[in-house]
C-alpha cells in the first residue's frame, strides 16, 4: 500500500543517528518547557530558530516539531501539580489539580502521559492516511462557519464551570469583555486601551492564564498555613486495572476531537481541550465525576491537546498556510532554508513530510518513556520546601510572560491578573469560564462581523452555508434536549422523586465557599 511505502521511506529518514538525536533533543526540551510554568513552545522555538541555520532542514523540522508536541505532553504536569496552565492545558487545572488535592497526583500524571501517547498515535494515523486531502478541509470553513463553531464552543461554559452556573456565565462574559481590549480589526479603533501603548494589542492569553490560575493559587497557598505539596503521601504512578480501562474511551474521544480541531486554522490545542472536556461531560459513563477530579477530565484534555498539536502541521504541509504562531515559525524555518512552503509541499518534499511523520512516532514513544516512568525525577523538585519553591515558580512565570513579546509591561499585566485571580478565588468565582470567554469571544466577534461584511448584512448566510447550518442545528438540538430533560426532571420532582441532576447544578455548593 502506498502509505506503508511512504512510511517506510519516512522511517528511513527518521532513523538516522542524527535525526534520532534531534528528535530526542526536541522532545526533551519540549517536555521541560512544558513542565516549567510560564515558558511556552512558541518562545522556545523562536529562541532556537537560529540554531537551525546550520543543521539540515529535516533535522531542524524534526527538532522544532519535537519541541512543540513535546511541550503538549509536559504542560499537563504543571497544570496538575501546581495549577499553573499553559494555553493548552487550562482544562487540566480543573480536574487534574482536584486529583492532586485528593492525593491522586500519580494517577493524574500517568493518565496525562498515556492519554498524550494515545492522542499522538491517533493524530499520526490521521496525518499519514489523510494529510494530502485534509488540507482542503481547512479551506471549506468560511467566517460564518467559524462563527457557528465558536457559538457551539460557548455551550462548553456550563461544562467547565464548577460551582454556580450563574457565576460561571458572569465570568464567561467578563472574559469576553477582557478579550475586547485592544485594537478593533475592522476599523483600527483602539478599545479599552486607556491610551496605554502596551494595551494596543490587547491582553495576552498567557498573562491572563498565569495570573488567574497560577499566581492566584500561589497566593492562596501562602495564605493558608498548611504545607501544600503535590505529595499527599507517596506518588503511586501505576494505576489499577479498572482505572487504566477508564483512560481509553476518554482519550480516544479526545484524540478524535483534537485531530479534527487541530486542522482548522485558528483552532489548535487551545480550543481542542475544551471540546474534549465538553464531549466527555456529555457522553462519558463517569460524567458525574468530571469536575471533582476524575480520570476522564485529565485524559480527554491531554489526548486532544497532543492530537491537535500534531494535526496542526497539516495546513502548513499540505497547503502552505500556517494556522497558528508556532506553524508560522516553522514556515519561517523553511523559508530561511530556502524552501518555499506552499500547496503540494508533500508532493514536492516527500522526505520532509514523511520523515516528520515517522519521527513523530519515534518522538511519541520517547515522550511516553520520559513522561511516565521518569516523571518521578521531575517531581522530586517538589520535595523542596514551598517557601523556597514558589519564588522559582513565580520567576518562571515572569520569564514566560516576558518571552511572548519581550515586553516588561506584560509582567505588570500578569501581576494585575494575579491580583484579580486572587480576588476571584476568595469570592468563589471560577476562572475557567473566564478563559473560555476570553478565547472564544474575540474570535466569535471577528468572524461574525466578517461574515456580515461578506454577506452584505444578510443573516441568511448562517443557514445557507452547509457547515454553519449543521453546527447551528447541533446547537439547537442540544438546547432542546437540555430543555426537555429539565422539564422532565421538574415533572419527576413534582411527583415526589429525588432532586434531579439538572436542578442540582443551580445550587451553590462550591468547595471553596464551603472552606471559607
Amino acid at each position: 500500500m502506498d502509505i506503508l511505502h511512504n512510511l517506510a521511506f519516512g522511517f528511513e529518514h527518521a532513523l538516522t543517528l542524527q535525526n534520532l538525536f534531534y528528535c530526542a533533543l526536541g522532545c526533551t526540551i519540549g517536555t521541560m518547557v512544558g513542565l516549567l510554568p510560564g515558558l511556552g513552545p512558541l518562545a522556545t522555538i523562536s529562541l532556537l530558530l537560529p540554531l537551525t541555520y546550520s543543521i539540515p532542514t529535516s533535522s531542524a523540522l524534526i527538532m522544532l516539531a519535537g519541541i512543540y508536541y513535546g511541550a503538549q505532553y509536559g504542560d499537563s504536569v504543571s497544570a496538575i501539580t501546581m495549577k499553573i496552565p499553559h494555553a493548552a492545558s487550562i482544562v487540566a487545572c480543573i480536574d487534574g489539580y482536584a486529583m492532586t488535592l485528593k492525593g491522586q497526583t500519580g494517577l493524574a500524571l500517568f493518565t496525562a502521559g498515556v492519554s498524550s501517547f494515545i492522542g499522538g498515535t491517533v493524530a499520526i494515523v490521521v496525518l499519514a492516511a489523510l494529510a494530502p486531502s485534509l488540507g482542503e478541509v481547512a479551506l471549506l470553513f468560511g467566517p460564518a462557519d467559524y462563527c457557528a463553531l465558536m457559538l457551539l464552543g460557548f455551550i462548553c461554559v456550563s461544562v467547565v464551570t464548577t460551582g454556580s452556573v450563574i457565576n460561571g456565565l458572569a465570568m464567561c462574559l467578563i472574559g469576553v469583555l477582557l478579550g475586547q481590549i485592544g485594537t478593533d480589526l475592522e476599523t483600527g479603533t483602539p478599545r479599552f486601551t486607556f491610551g496605554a501603548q502596551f494595551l494596543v494589542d490587547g491582553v495576552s492569553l498567557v498573562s491572563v492564564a498565569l495570573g488567574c490560575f497560577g499566581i492566584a493559587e500561589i497566593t492562596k497557598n501562602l495564605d493558608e498555613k498548611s504545607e501544600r505539596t503535590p505529595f499527599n503521601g507517596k506518588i503511586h504512578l501505576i494505576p489499577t486495572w479498572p482505572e487504566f480501562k477508564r483512560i481509553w474511551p476518554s482519550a480516544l474521544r479526545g484524540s478524535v476531537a483534537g485531530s479534527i480541531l487541530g486542522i482548522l486554522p485558528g483552532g489548535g490545542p487551545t480550543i481542542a481541550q475544551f471540546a474534549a472536556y465538553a464531549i466527555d461531560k456529555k457522553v462519558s459513563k463517569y460524567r458525574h465525576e468530571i469536575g471533582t477530579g476524575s480520570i476522564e477530565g485529565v485524559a480527554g484534555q491531554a489526548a486532544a491537546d497532543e492530537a491537535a498539536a500534531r494535526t496542526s502541521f497539516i495546513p502548513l504541509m499540505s497547503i502552505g498556510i500556517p494556522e497558528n504562531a508556532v506553524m508560522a515559525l516553522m514556515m519561517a524555518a523553511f523559508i530561511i532554508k530556502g524552501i518555499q512552503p506552499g500547496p503540494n509541499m508533500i508532493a514536492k518534499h516527500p522526505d520532509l513530510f514523511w520523515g516528520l511523520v515517522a519521527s513523530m512516532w519515534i518522538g511519541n514513544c520517547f515522550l511516553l518513556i520520559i513522561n511516565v516512568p521518569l516523571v518521578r525525577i521531575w517531581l522530586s523538585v517538589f520535595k523542596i520546601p514551598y517557601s523556597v519553591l514558589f519564588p522559582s515558580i513565580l520567576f518562571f512565570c515572569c520569564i514566560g510572560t516576558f518571552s511572548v513579546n519581550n515586553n516588561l509591561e506584560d509582567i505588570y499585566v500578569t501581576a494585575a491578573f494575579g491580583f484579580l485571580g486572587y480576588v476571584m478565588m476568595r469570592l468563589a468565582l471560577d476562572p475557567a469560564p473566564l478563559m473560555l470567554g476570553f478565547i472564544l469571544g474575540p474570535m466569535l466577534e471577528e468572524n461574525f462581523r466578517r461574515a456580515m461584511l461578506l454577506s452584505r448584512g444578510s443573516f441568511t448566510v448562517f443557514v445557507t452555508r452547509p457547515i454553519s447550518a449543521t453546527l447551528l442545528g447541533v446547537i439547537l438540538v442540544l438546547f432542546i434536549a437540555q430543555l426537555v430533560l429539565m422539564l422532565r426532571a421538574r415533572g419527576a420532582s413534582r411527583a415526589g422523586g429525588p432532586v434531579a441532576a439538572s436542578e442540582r447544578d443551580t445550587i451553590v455548593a462550591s468547595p471553596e465557599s464551603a472552606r471559607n
Partner: protein
Amino acid sequence: MKELTRRGLIVASAGGVVAGLPSVASGQGHNWPERPIRLIVPYPPGGSTDVLARLLGERLKDRLGGTWVVENRPGAGGNTGIDVVAKSAPDGYTIGSATVGHFSISQYLYNRMPFDSDQDLIPISLTWELPNVAVVPTQHVPARTIPEFIAWAKGRSGGYFYGSPGVGTSPHLCGALFATRTGLTATHVPFRGAAQTIPAMLGGDVQLAIDNLPSYVGAIAAGQFRVLAVTTPERWPTLPDVPTMAEAGVPDFVATSWAAFVAPSATPRAIVDRISEALRAIAADPAVQQRFETAGARPLGSTPEEVREKSRRERPIWKEMVQISGARLD
C-alpha cells in the same frame, strides 16, 4: 638616574596612551562590536520581515563579526519595536529593522506617534524591497488581466471584496487606491495576515488582494492565484510576464514595500557607516540575491542619506493613499 627617570616617563606615557586607546577607540567604533548586537524586528517571529532580517543578520555576523541577536518586539503595527530602538542607548548595539510604514505612512495614520523617524532615528541603509502584487484566485475569478478584471467587476452587482492584513497596511491602501482610480465599487475586508486572507480567497469570499509578494509565492507557483499586475515601477524579475500597473492601464500607481535598518539618531557615525557599507556589499552578493528572490524580495543597499531622500519622496504619495482609503488608527 636621570636616564631611568626619562625612560620611566616615556614608558609610563606610552602605557597611558595604550591604556587610553580602547576608550577613545570605542567612542569612534574601532572595537565595535564587543558585545552582542540586538537586531530588533518589530513584528512577530515567522513573518517576512523577521525572516529577511534574520538572513541579513547572519551575513552581517560573517562580515562584521560579533553576535547578532534578533529580538522580536511586535505591537502597535510595528511602532512598539521601533520606538524601543529610538529610545535605546546610541552605542551601536541596538539596530532596528524598519519598513516604509515607519518612515512614510504611520505619521498619516496615527494621531500621535511615540517617535519621530526624522529626529529620533538615523537610517543605516535600505535593506530590501518587495512588490505588491494584484492577485486573484484562479478558481473564482476568470480575469487574466487588469482590464478584464475591471470589466468583470463592473458586471458584478455590489462590486467585489478585497482583502488586506489590516487597516492602514499597504495592501489596504493599494486596494483603496485601485478602486478609486478604476471607479469600481469595492469593500475592504481586513484579516490577520495573509494566512487568513489566502483561505478566504481560495474559498471564494474575497476576490482581490494587492498584497506583499512573499506571502503568496508558493500559492502563485502552484497555480492557485493569478497575478494581474505588480506595483513596482518596472517589471519584477521573478514575474517577467506580469505587467506593471502602468502597463496594465492604471497609471501613477507605484507602491513598493521597502525596508531599512535604523539606529538611534545619536549613534556614532563611524559605526553607522560600517554597517551601511557591509549591507551594501551583502546586497551585491549573488547568493544573497538568490535567497531573497526565492522569498519574493530583492536585497538593497544604500547610504543613510538615500534612505532619507526616498522616504521624503514617497511621503506625498502615501499621504494621498491614506486619505483616499480613509484609514485612521489612533
